[in-house]
């Protein structure tokens, strides 16, 4: 079958262009790895240094209680002066000093002071302060021998909370697909025209639209491969919860990518050379990547910009692919997004046909 043969030939050409393939496949993966590392850094534990002058049961109990908290990392120190210097130099955020006469004076007034030294600008200081004071209250009660009358029964409801890398992964996949499709098609068209390949095809009985259709099919196939690769790496290496239906994710990707392929045709038609096509393609791609929700939700932008950006073709695609991937959302959850993408497909198809008829 001619269309199939043409599509296969196009896939061969895409795959043999190693440099373009790197930007399509490896570069997004590199981005995933880099952002994966950054994201892991953000959930690091808080180090609390403790200088224990008491060295008795109560002080040990306090240290153990602190150490049991998952996000605390207790570091027992001997030298108070060094620890204070570290606080001053911002190398350490929290320092607890337990006085020598903790047990002997515990039952008398005035109460014994356990010092907590911290940098007031540290964001997590509130959490630490309340945690430490809760432990002290608890120990006060124990020392006083008061029976425990009221207990907090914590009932945590698991709200699905996505990490930065979870949020980022679908965006990076869509970004990779978009730049590959826009720039790949644009440079191919410019190259074919520069080398008179399109004209050569016009001299055969083949319809040029069949040739273009095969190019589109090849790039749609590549988009699915790109998405599978990037999402798999995110899921397997970084544990991104990919809960969605692959068919739905795939269809959102194909739908959105049709817009980008059309944009590629338009850019290619207007570019006089391959270099120009690559430059113009980047000019189309980069602003969308910056503002369309790949790195942060578009509502984080100033108001006017948000309302403009959400109508660009990338924003609804990122939104839909992210929802479908992480939250198993379906077509009915994104009527607006599908509508915007459909409008873009119609609009860009018309423009693409028009510029090519003109050529």
């Amino acid at each position, binding site marked *: 079958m001619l269309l199939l043969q043409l599509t296969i*030939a196009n896939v061969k*050409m895409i795959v043999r262009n190693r440099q373009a393939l790197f930007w399509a496949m490896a570069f997004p993966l590199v981005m995933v790895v880099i952002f994966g590392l950054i994201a892991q850094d953000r959930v690091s534990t808080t180090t609390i240094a403790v200088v224990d002058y008491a060295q008795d049961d109560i002080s040990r109990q306090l240290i153990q209680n602190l150490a049991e908290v998952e996000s605390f990392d207790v570091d027992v120190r001997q030298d108070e002066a060094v620890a204070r210097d570290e606080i001053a130099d911002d190398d350490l955020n929290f320092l607890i000093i337990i006085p020598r006469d903790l047990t002997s004076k515990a039952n008398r007034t005035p109460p014994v002071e356990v010092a907590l030294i911290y940098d007031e600008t540290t964001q997590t200081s509130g959490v630490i302060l309340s945690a430490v004071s809760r432990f002290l209250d608890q120990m006060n009660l124990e020392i006083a021998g008061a029976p425990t009358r009221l207990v907090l029964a914590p009932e945590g409801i698991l709200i699905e909370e996505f990490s930065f890398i979870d949020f980022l992964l679908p965006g990076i996949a869509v970004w990779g697909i978009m730049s590959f499709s826009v720039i790949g098609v644009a440079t191919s068209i410019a190259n074919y025209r520069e*080398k*008179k*390949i399109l*004209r050569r095809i*016009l*001299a*055969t*009985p083949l319809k040029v639209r069949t040739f273009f259709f095969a190019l589109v099919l090849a790039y749609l196939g590549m988009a699915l491969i790109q998405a599978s690769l990037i999402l798999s790496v995110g899921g397997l290496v970084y544990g991104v919860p990919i809960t969605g239906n692959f068919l739905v994710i795939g269809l959102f990707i194909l739908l959105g990518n049709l817009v980008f392929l059309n944009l590629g045709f338009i850019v290619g038609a207007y570019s006089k050379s391959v270099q120009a096509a690559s430059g113009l393609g980047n000019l189309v791609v980069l602003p969308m990547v910056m503002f369309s929700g790949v790195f942060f939700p578009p509502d984080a932008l100033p108001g006017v910009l948000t309302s403009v950006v959400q109508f660009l073709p990338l924003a609804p695609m990122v939104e839909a692919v992210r929802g479908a991937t992480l939250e198993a959302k379906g077509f009915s959850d994104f009527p607006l997004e599908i509508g915007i993408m459909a409008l873009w497909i119609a609009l860009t198809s018309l423009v693409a046909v028009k510029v090519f008829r003109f050529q």
Partner: protein
Amino acid sequence: MSEPVDEVISVESLNKRFGDLVAVDDISFSVRRGEVFGILGPNGAGKTTTLECIEGLQEPSSGRISVLGTEVARDPNTVKERIGVQLQASAYFDYLTLTEILELFGRFYSRRVPPAELLSTVGLEDKANTTVGKLSGGQQQRFTIAATLVNDPEVVFLDEPTAGLDPQARRNLWDFVQSINSQGRTIVLTTHYMEEAEFLCDRVAIMDQGRIVTLDTPTNLVRSLPVPYEVRASTLNEFSSNGLADLDCVTEVLDDQNRGFRLRCSDAASTMPALMDWVAKNDIKLTHLEVTPANLEDVFLSLTGRALRD
């Protein structure tokens, strides 16, 4: 269609305008089956436009073209099925091998020739799995010629097939063009090299500024010139050119320097004996003598008053 069987292309009153520019200005000619037909002219004469109108790549502003009995404007695809086209300075896909490109292009036609056979026609069988980018200029040109043959065409169009090639590669390509012609295919080519037209073409149409200024076999075109020969001589001693212009059939003495002369004559066979007598009578010692027949360059010059290449 009631075309005469030996006429494969007929062009009648072809006009092609681009806005105010008249690229092709009311030309008519026909091409016979089996011949190599050349369109010779300087850059911008309208050669490529004429060819592309015949190939169905451009729509004529007016006029009627039929190829192999089919009117191009009415049924371009039937024509495209039966012709092979090489475009001027065209290339092929970067990332496909020669075999893959020929296979792919073959699929565009209902009739196709196996790639291996095409490559051996132009001596590129050992490059079957190479990409076009790795071929030399001459090999690339040969490949584009092989690619015109994928559908076993009856008529092959070659637009400036040897442009940019060195003399040896050009000679080499001429051999392939002749061998394709000897397979019974009609060939229409454009060129601005008069040697190429003289060597390859059975008939030549000379184009200038969108018009065909003359059309005939290369020999007839040269013979039609009033002064088809030029005689050039160098002498050992100084001499007087008295009487030189009066020799048999001499039409013009171009320059007489101290130690040589150049003249034009209408018939070298009559002029030469007379010239030898004159040389002996005036006691002139010749150190060099040459007689050159005029060429298509001179035909072009005499018809347009300008040189073929600027």
